[in-house]
Structures are given as structure tokens and as C-alpha cells.
């Protein structure tokens, strides 16, 4: 097994554990590169099937390319697709800095979807290498009744055994990509020929490394127009992946606050 095979096998194992142990599951499909790899891995785990819905929390502020991508692959892959809407920004915690406040809409949209459908487990495609609090995540992460994350008291997780039971009224976040890095994602996307939104490829000297809402996401300087070029770029860059995501940089604690309140 090579490096990518090892990562893939681990993710498949996690998908199958969740599917076996948890009744009502759904996957967050943000349409970005990680989400698409995650969806692909689920189909590997279940032999071409996706035995739970793919959910997209629509902030209404996504790039047009993202909507086009979504519409195409929902049909092409025959997905059980759910779309969630988000409340206006005015209803969000006003003590949050502006971009974080805007991002909090997504958390609210997710909560509504969770409550409506009674999901007990949500797959989210976050990775440890993205950001400091994600670096401390578990594969199976219990969330309190309001979606809150007990960041200071997480249960232990080791030897490939996960915490798959939880008190009523709470749910699990399941993170099948936790052990992948950005470069792994691209290498795997290339190897498996996984469809990708064109915004990741450079046009006029700029490309997106990470896709969020159009109003709070910025492209980076780059000439990488193909996946091999992106991989080459990542091998030498010292710029962090989420540098173009405004909400990460407004205040030292902004992202932690978002995440403990239920953000992915």
C-alpha cells in the first residue's frame, strides 16, 4: 500500500464504522475539493452507492461555478440531495467580527437541517492540517444539544475504536478526512480523476485555494492551472491554506468561537 492507499483505507474504515453504528446519517457536501474527495471515498466504502443524503448548506453567497457544479453532479451521481438555507446575518451573534459573523450563518443553517431531519451523525470533510482547533479534533466527535463542542473535555479515541454512542439529544460529527493534508487531497483527486470546480485553477495569475462564501473568500497569487502544478506549488509554499478565508484572521479567538458553537 502506498501513502494514498493508507489514507483511503482509513477513511473507508471510518465511513463503514459510522454507517454500522449510527442510524440517521448525512454528509455535508460543500462542493469544495475536500468534500468531493469525501464523497468519492464514501462511494468507495459503499461500492458505488451513497447510502445517506448529501447536504449542501446554501448561504446564497456561493460562486456561480459552485452552483453549476452542484446541479451537474447531483444528477450525474444520482445523489440523495438536501439543501439547507441560512438565516440572515442580522440574526447572528453580534459580538463576532464581521466575516465570522457571516460564516456563523452556515452553523445556523446546519442546526435547522439537523433538527428537521433528526440526524444523529454528520460527516464533515475537515482536516487536521487546516487550522489549530481542527488539529485537535477526533474522528468521532460528540456535539452537545445545541451543536456545541466540548473542546476542553473530548473523549479518548485510539486503536481504531471510536466513540459511537451518545446521549439523546446530541449528535456526532464524523471526520473521515481528518488525517489528510491539502497536498494529499490534490494527489488523490488527480489519481482518481475526481471532478473539481474550476475556481481552484489559476486564471489571470490568481486562484482559490479554499472555497467559502464569495464575500469572505479571496484568491491567492498563483500560476497553477493544473493539478500537477498545484501540487508543485504546495510543495514549496509557506503560505497557509486558509489565508484567503477572512474569518480565520479577524481575531485570535474568532474561529475557535465559531467552531465551539457548532461550525465545521
Amino acid at each position, binding site marked *: *500500500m*502506498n*501513502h*494514498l*492507499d*493508507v489514507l*483511503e*483505507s*482509513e477513511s*473507508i*474504515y471510518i465511513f*463503514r464504522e459510522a*454507517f*454500522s453504528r449510527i442510524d440517521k446519517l448525512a454528509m455535508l457536501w460543500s462542493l469544495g475539493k475536500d468534500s468531493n474527495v469525501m464523497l*468519492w471515498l464514501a*462511494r*468507495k*466504502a*459503499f*461500492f*458505488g*452507492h451513497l*447510502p445517506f443524503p448529501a447536504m449542501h448548506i446554501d448561504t446564497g453567497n456561493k460562486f456561480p461555478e459552485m452552483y453549476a457544479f452542484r446541479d451537474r453532479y447531483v444528477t450525474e451521481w444520482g445523489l440523495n440531495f438536501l439543501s439547507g438555507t441560512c438565516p440572515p446575518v442580522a440574526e447572528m451573534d453580534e459580538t463576532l467580527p464581521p466575516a465570522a459573523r457571516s460564516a456563523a450563518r452556515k452553523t445556523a443553517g446546519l442546526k435547522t437541517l439537523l433538527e428537521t431531519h433528526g440526524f444523529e451523525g454528520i460527516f464533515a470533510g475537515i482536516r*487536521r*492540517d487546516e*487550522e*489549530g*482547533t481542527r*488539529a*485537535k479534533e*477526533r474522528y468521532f466527535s*460528540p456535539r452537545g444539544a445545541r451543536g456545541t463542542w466540548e*473542546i*476542553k473535555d*473530548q*473523549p*479518548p*479515541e*485510539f*486503536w481504531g*475504536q471510536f*466513540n459511537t*454512542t451518545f*446521549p439523546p439529544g446530541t449528535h456526532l460529527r464524523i471526520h473521515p478526512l481528518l488525517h489528510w*493534508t491539502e497536498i*494529499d487531497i490534490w*494527489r488523490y483527486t*488527480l489519481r*482518481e480523476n475526481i471532478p473539481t470546480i474550476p475556481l481552484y485553477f489559476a486564471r489571470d495569475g490568481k486562484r482559490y485555494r479554499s472555497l467559502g462564501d464569495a464575500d469572505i473568500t479571496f484568491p491567492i497569487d498563483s500560476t497553477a492551472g493544473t493539478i*500537477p502544478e498545484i*501540487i*508543485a506549488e504546495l*510543495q514549496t509554499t*509557506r*503560505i*497557509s491554506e486558509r*489565508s484567503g478565508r477572512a474569518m480565520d484572521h479577524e481575531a*485570535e*479567538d474568532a474561529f*475557535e468561537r465559531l467552531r465551539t458553537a457548532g461550525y465545521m
Partner: protein
Amino acid sequence: MSVAEESLKVAIVGHVDHGKSTLVGRLFHDTGSLPEGKFEAIQAMCKRRGMPFEWAFLMDALQAERDQGVTIDTSQIWFRTAKRGYVIIDAPGHKEFLKNMVTGAAASDAALLLIDAEEGIKEQSRRHGYLLHLLGVRQVTVAVNKMDLVAYDRDRFATIERDYRVYLRELGVTPTHFIPISAREGDNIARPSEAMAWYQGPTVLQALDDFQVITQPDGLPLRFPVQDVYRFDERRIIAGRIETGILQVGDQLLFSPANRMGKVKSIEAWSVAAPPIQACAGESIGITLEEQIFVERGDVASHEVNPPIESDVFLARLFWLGDRDLTMGSRYTMKLNTAEVGVVVQSVDRVIDTGDLSTKGEVKVARNQVAEITLRADTMQALDAFTSSPPTGRFVLVDNYNIAGGGIISMEGYADQRNLVARQSSNIQRVEHDVTAENRESRNGHRGGVLWFTGLSGAGKSTVAVAVERRLFNLGYQTYVLDGDNVRHGLNGDLGFSPEDRAENIRRVGEVAALISRAGMLCITAFISPYRSDRDRARLAGGDGFAEIFIKADLATCERRDPKGLYKKARAGDIPDFTGISAPYEAPGAPDLVIDTATLTVEEAVERVVEYVQSRFAIYAKPVSE
């Protein structure tokens, strides 16, 4: 494009505040691995808090961690040298967060253990060393940090090195390197230290590259625990991950503990060029079988040769992370491979002090303690001893929703029950007798049955059995005593004293006793029969007429009596695996009768048994003269 490369996971462990997170921050800085702007961001965080620059803030991402200057949860960060890629796993050192340390360290291939030069070896320095060993992390490099605080003193380093090597040696661990460092000042991190010219060994960076990538030893037998069975389409796919060994299309598989066989028809995969014909350890796969046999999650597939052990009882070395103490009789859900089963703590055998490795005969295991315990599962399990197959020889216990402890399995003193079970379940038609049980009962005046005596050597089983036989005979009963002497010579002459042979010995006695009882007689057996599983099997064979009689006397009493001098020999080490001394005796949980020979005379004991027999087996008794 370069190919995805080799990578190694290294955990940073050690006592609280000994500089683990600082080391990671400094290592990143000195190798030019910090993301752009990170150094300045950390400067700003420290300034805002009015404190000097803190390297640990690279890893300590939580506000609470930065505010309190302590790592709360484990964290992972990616790093590379010219040689390969690394996942650096920073672990917390505070005792309060040991569960997080375990979470981090258990994922690693190797560990760097830090000891503060000024503070010296502390409680968690030792405990972490011990846990690494238990978690299966065998490669350790020790770094003695904060050498700047002891003026880079060579002797101080030598003292700590000497003491800690002694500790590791007792665990059977040989550290790959011992390095004097100053994480904060950058001595021997990525560059050799000028202040410690007396040290010639590798830097931390070089020591990382000296770790080996661990690969599974060749030739381990196949273990394929079933994770799930899918029927998404016309295929019935058995999914799981191969833990050890190799599986090929066409292989005949044995599923344990169900003991069913099936032949691999195909290995299924989605979006691959050609369907695989073979899969090896670490691969998450799905297979179909030629036959439609019943298989479910928790079964373990193996080949026919070298199958897993089957047992419902085993010994474990366990670390406990739960808030509530683990005590004898506590019940948990055990997760073993993909099986989930109820278990009860049969006994807490000893608690290990990780400070000096001494053991104490405690009855409870508190949070963060390590102990040896005996666990009994509700049903038969397929498992391995940790030493022969680490991935399938360990388990976790779940208490109150969360994983609360982990342990490694030892079968020392316990038998593989596979053959005992298999033989019992083979389906042979019984001959129909023309003479019925009622016919026999009305002639004998009593029902047939088995009086199964169990107890320590010297408890008085044979003495009481022989006296009971005589009394019952005089009362008109058809009765016969089976003991070691009359079965070991003939019937069981082929058996030795290994755990498996002992179990087989008892199995046969149980079957013979059952036959004698069906012949209408009362069979009295006098065997130590120390294992509950063995006695339960005898009960199953014996049926309704089975009575478990606990001939009870505490170990001290038995040892004082020592009629055959066996205890003395066992204490001297001349008899291995002697029940009560060097092998377990599992007292009956709910015996039909207890005879306490420490307080009763032989006559009184016999009287109690006879009363019991009269009340349970007599129809009418016809005394004969002696």
C-alpha cells in the same frame, strides 16, 4: 510530480511543562517550516498577553491553553525533512489530560520523551514511558530539555540519563538516543549545540530521521474482522479491514466464533481498473462468498490453520481513564476488533505503580492507573494474545457512552476453548433408548445426576466425595466417584497439563459424568476444575441433574493442610501453573451448594451433601445394611 512519500508519526510526550510544545515550535522555526506570518502572529499573541515569546503557541491553539500555559488536548502537525514526511503529535503532560495523551500517543510509530533537566524525572515522565510500552510504541528517544537552566551541565544530564535508562530497561525498552537539549534556545534541535560541545550524538532532527518505519512482520496469520454486511445491489458484500495477513480469491475462510466456513468468490471494489485478486493487512475491502452462510459484524475471518483463539475469559493489562473506579463485578461494553459485547470484571488481580513498577493487591482501579484484571465476556469471543497479534489482541471498554480504558490481552493460564466448543456443537443423533429415564428412576429409587465438586487443592474434595459415596451407597443410591486417579490413567492418559489439556480433561470428565448420570446413577466428581467456562460446559453436558458443589476453604487453610506437599513445591517454583499460587481459581458465581470445610468437620460436610441429595434426587430410598 513526486510520488506521495513515506511518512512517520512521532508523539512528543513527558511530564507537564517539560517543554514538549516548545520543542515543536522551535523545531518548526529552526527548519524553516513555520507558515508565513506565523512567527509574527505568535509575537502578537504574546504581546497581547504581556508575556515573553512562547514557542508553544504554535501547537497550543486553544484560548484556554494559551491563557493557562498548558496543553489540554493532543494536536497534530505535518513536517518534513530531506528524508521523509512526519506527523508530529504533541501530547499534553498534565495528569488531568492523560486520556488525551493516550489518544495522541496511540496513533504514533515512535515517541520523543522530554524530561526537564532542572526538575528531573517526574510522575508523568515514568507513566508516559510505561504507557508507550503498553500502547505498543516501541521506539523512544529521550531528550533532556531546559539544559540552559542547569548551565548545560554534563553531569546533570548523565544522572538523568542513567536513572531513566534503568526505568526503561525494566520495561524492556531500549531508547534509540538520549539527547541534551534546550528547546527554547534551540540547542541540539536542528543544530548541534555550541554550549554543549561535550555531546557528540545526534540532534533531535537527526534522531527523528533515525526512527524506523514500522511494517507488520511477514507471515502473520490472516485476521479479517467483519465490519458489516451490505446488500446495496444483487451482491452480498462482507466488508472489513484486514488487520493481519493476506486474503486471496479462492481462499477457504473460517469465521469465528460462529465456526462457519466459506470460500472467497471475489474481492469487490468500486472505480478500479481491474477487480483485485488479493488484499493485505491494512486494506479496507469487501468480499463475496461462494456459499450463502450467515456472517455478521464481530465475526473474525481467518484461514483454517492458525485461527484466532476462542475464549470468554482472559487476562488483560489495562489502563483506566474513566471517572468512576473499575472494580470487581463492574460491567462494561467491550469493543474488540468489530465485536461489541458485555463484559464483567471477574477480578482485579493487581494494580501497577508506574513510578517504581511495584504491584499492589488492590480491589479497584482508579482513573489513570494501570492494572492487571480478568475479564469475562457474555459470549464466546474470537481474539488473540497481544504478543502474537497486536491489532487483534487489544480492546477498549466503554462506560457511560465513552471509551474509558484500553487493554492488551494475555491468555496465560487460560485455555483456547475452540476445540471444546466445536466438539460440543457437532451434531450427532443420539440413540433412542428403549429403557426410559423413568424406568431407571423407579428401579433405583432416585434420579440420576452429577455432583460436581470444585475447590482448591487441599479443600477436601476427595475426602468428602469418598465419604459421601459411602453414605449414599448405604442409603441405597447407585453412585460412583470420578477423580484424577481413575481418569488420568486411562481415559485421559493422552493429556498433559497445558491449559488446553486441562480444559479437555475437564470436558471429558463432564461428558462421562453426564453418561453415568443418564445411566441413572449419581456421579460425584472431585476435580479442582478452576475455570468457570469449563464447569459451565460440564453443566451443559450434565443437564437438569447437575449440581455444582463448592468445596470451600481459603488458600491459607489449604496451604496449611497441604496433604500432598504440593503447595510447598509450588511455592518453591517446582510446579508451574499451580492453582491458587501461579494459576487462577475462579470461584463459582452461583453454586448449588457451598460446603465450607474450614468450619465444618468431615462428618458435618458429608451430612450437608447427603441432605441436599435426599431433597433433590430421592424418589424413595431403600437403605441396605453395611
